[in-house]
């Protein structure tokens, strides 16, 4: 593939069409994105961020990509935002039309368009920069809005669109697992628990009217089955009325890649989630260990779908587990997890979700030696799996993930001296699996539910 920005390419030639004229279409789509009627969802933070950056560079001081790249210009958060901002000024503001050179307004060319399309996929929208910006300007929201504009002219990574949201709507999950295969998998997991733990756990599927519908990131069944089994053991030990669901009931995958690149796709998937939960008549939709799914269902949904149309509660599995441990509903013995354990705050659960205490209380209850990574919580460094990166591999992209975010995380992890990194997000797990391999770290990753299951006193 031809080079259009740096040494990587996340957009295939079929999607980017780097040699075709697209500038006009882009400007049309951008014009629409600036209309509050057509694009109300993030209009305020988006337009404020385009307008009021003071060019102080504070964002760069905390951006994992910029720092880990050795401060390469092209990865500066403002450089990225300016790719869109210059176009905004040139075509959509008066000073930019009158005095382009003075305010840094620039014509958009096909080459600049190519570079921008790639560069907006060098930022995980972790919003660490927005947290420290003196004016609370959000380079993350600019990257996301740019992704939306590109998607509107049909430029989006295949992993997120063709094999992501669209596959999920069609098959009920982004892994494309049909109902019968799903049921076989569940049977296999039940046997696996019995073999390894020596007790039987019944995993209910498609039970209508259950108190809790637990929905995992469907990728977990294939890649992180320990988390799925751990959650089943915890649910079983708590003795609650719960169920998983198969694609026969609608959507059985908590992911919503629309969060990363498109409000249209986002809303489609969200509505499918809501329909499924309503059809099953459950009381609480429990989001498995998945950061962006939690953000979507817990927060982004609130102003998008009226309360009357979503007659169920949304909780993260971490909230329930924490509650049950504190109530004594499930009993745990930390001696069963003697190794040093640390925790990585997923951006979506932490900075964007406010869930800092629950995982820490759980881990302190279930592990003998809990350690913090530094920095953590609101200043946690994104692992590099966010905003879809964890499933994006082509164009040598894994190397980008490893040499930027991955490098910082590996250093943090080493400094902690922990031998287990506890993770509460599927995309973080995907990324850490690679980090541990790439940097040959003597560490393993584990889901929170897996560690609780390990510590269960039955």
């Amino acid at each position, binding site marked *: 593939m031809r080079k259009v920005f740096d040494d990587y390419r996340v957009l295939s030639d079929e999607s980017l069409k780097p040699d075709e004229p697209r500038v006009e279409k882009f400007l049309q789509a951008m014009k629409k994105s600036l209309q*509050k009627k057509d694009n*109300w*969802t*993030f*209009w*305020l*933070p988006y*337009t*404020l*961020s385009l*307008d*009021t*950056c*003071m*060019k*102080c*560079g*504070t964002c*760069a*001081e*905390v951006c994992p990509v910029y720092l880990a790249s050795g*401060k390469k*210009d092209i990865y*500066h958060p*403002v*450089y990225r935002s*300016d790719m869109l901002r210059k176009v905004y000024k040139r075509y959509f503001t008066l*000073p930019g039309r009158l005095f382009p*050179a*003075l*305010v*840094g307004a620039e014509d958009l060319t096909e080459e600049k368009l190519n570079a921008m399309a790639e560069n907006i996929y060098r930022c995980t929208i972790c*919003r660490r920069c*927005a*947290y*420290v*910006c*003196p*004016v*609370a*300007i*959000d380079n993350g*929201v600019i990257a996301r809005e740019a992704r939306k504009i590109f998607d509107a002219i049909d430029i989006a990574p295949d992993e997120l669109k063709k094999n992501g949201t669209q596959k999920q709507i069609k098959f009920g999950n982004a892994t494309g697992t049909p109902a019968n295969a799903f049921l076989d998998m569940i049977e296999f997991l039940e046997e696996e628990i019995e073999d390894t733990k020596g007790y039987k756990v019944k995993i209910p599927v498609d039970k209508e009217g259950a108190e809790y519908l637990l929905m995992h990131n469907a990728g977990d069944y294939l890649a992180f089955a320990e988390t799925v089994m751990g959650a089943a053991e915890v649910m079983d030990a708590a003795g609650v009325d719960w169920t998983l669901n198969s694609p026969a009931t609608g959507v059985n995958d908590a992911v919503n890649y629309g969060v990363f690149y498109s409000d249209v796709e986002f809303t489609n998937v969200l509505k499918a989630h809501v329909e499924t939960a309503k059809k099953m008549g459950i009381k609480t939709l429990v989001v498995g260990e998945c950061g962006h799914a939690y953000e979507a269902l817990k*927060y*982004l949904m*609130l*102003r*998008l779908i009226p309360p009357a149309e979503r007659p169920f509660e949304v909780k993260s599995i971490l909230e329930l587990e924490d509650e049950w441990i504190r109530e004594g509903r499930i009993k745990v013995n930390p001696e069963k997890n003697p190794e040093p354990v640390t925790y990585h705050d997923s951006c979506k659960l*932490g*900075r*964007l*979700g*406010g869930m*800092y205490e629950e995982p820490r209380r759980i881990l302190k209850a279930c592990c003998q030696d809990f350690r913090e990574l530094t920095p953590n919580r*609101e200043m946690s460094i994104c692992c590099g799996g966010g905003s879809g990166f964890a499933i994006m591999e082509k164009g040598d992209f894994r190397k980008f993930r490893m040499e930027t975010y991955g490098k910082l995380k590996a250093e943090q992890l080493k400094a902690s001296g922990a031998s287990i990194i506890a993770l509460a997000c599927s995309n973080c797990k995907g990324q850490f699996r690679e980090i541990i391999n790439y940097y040959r770290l003597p560490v393993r990753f584990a889901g929170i539910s897996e560690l609780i299951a390990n510590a269960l006193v039955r």
Partner: protein
Amino acid sequence: MALWELFTIAILPYLAIAVLVLGLGYKIIYWLKAPVNLHWELFPYPRTSGEQAGELLTEVFTLRSLYMHNRRIWLPSLVMHYGIYLVVFWLLFLVVGLPLAVYLGVTGGCLVAAGSLLLFLSRLINPELRRISEPVEYLNLAFLFLLAVAGLIGGVFRDFSFRTYIISLLTLKPHLSLPDNYLFFLLLFWLFMLYIPFTRMAHFAVKYFTYHKVKWGEME
């Protein structure tokens, strides 16, 4: 009296204030009319109006974000901002008639001049900052610097009788006889007021939205 002098002393002030008020007002109403966005808060954030006011004041008076994460421009920035705060108080004190005003004016002018010069140089010298700076960034700082220096050299800041002019403006009977060396300062001063709404220097107003409506969300 030349026409431009008359204009600077008696007409420009009203024009500038009108543009400043209408311009800022337009901006504020424009943002106020924004549709409520999807939840996009960053945790943790202050939840009560008391906590929010506390954070706001800390940021305004200490520029904490810069102190914590971008230390090398914190001091010049702080110096410049304090200078601006003092100049604003200079005007208020003049109107009220407190002789203390001249001390605020002179100190404020010095701080603005020093801060804007240092920031200008940092932008120019630091390659990271230089790369993200457009000409307008330098223009804004140079404007502030010139304004402060003109006020200091012309002697406006240390002249309590300048109050007569301000009061005459407020009572809509502009006092026309002013020392010549005040004119350049006045011209810059009113042009600056006129310029503010069109620039990012209106960020003091924008911050209300980025913080209260987005980063901190709606109050519960």
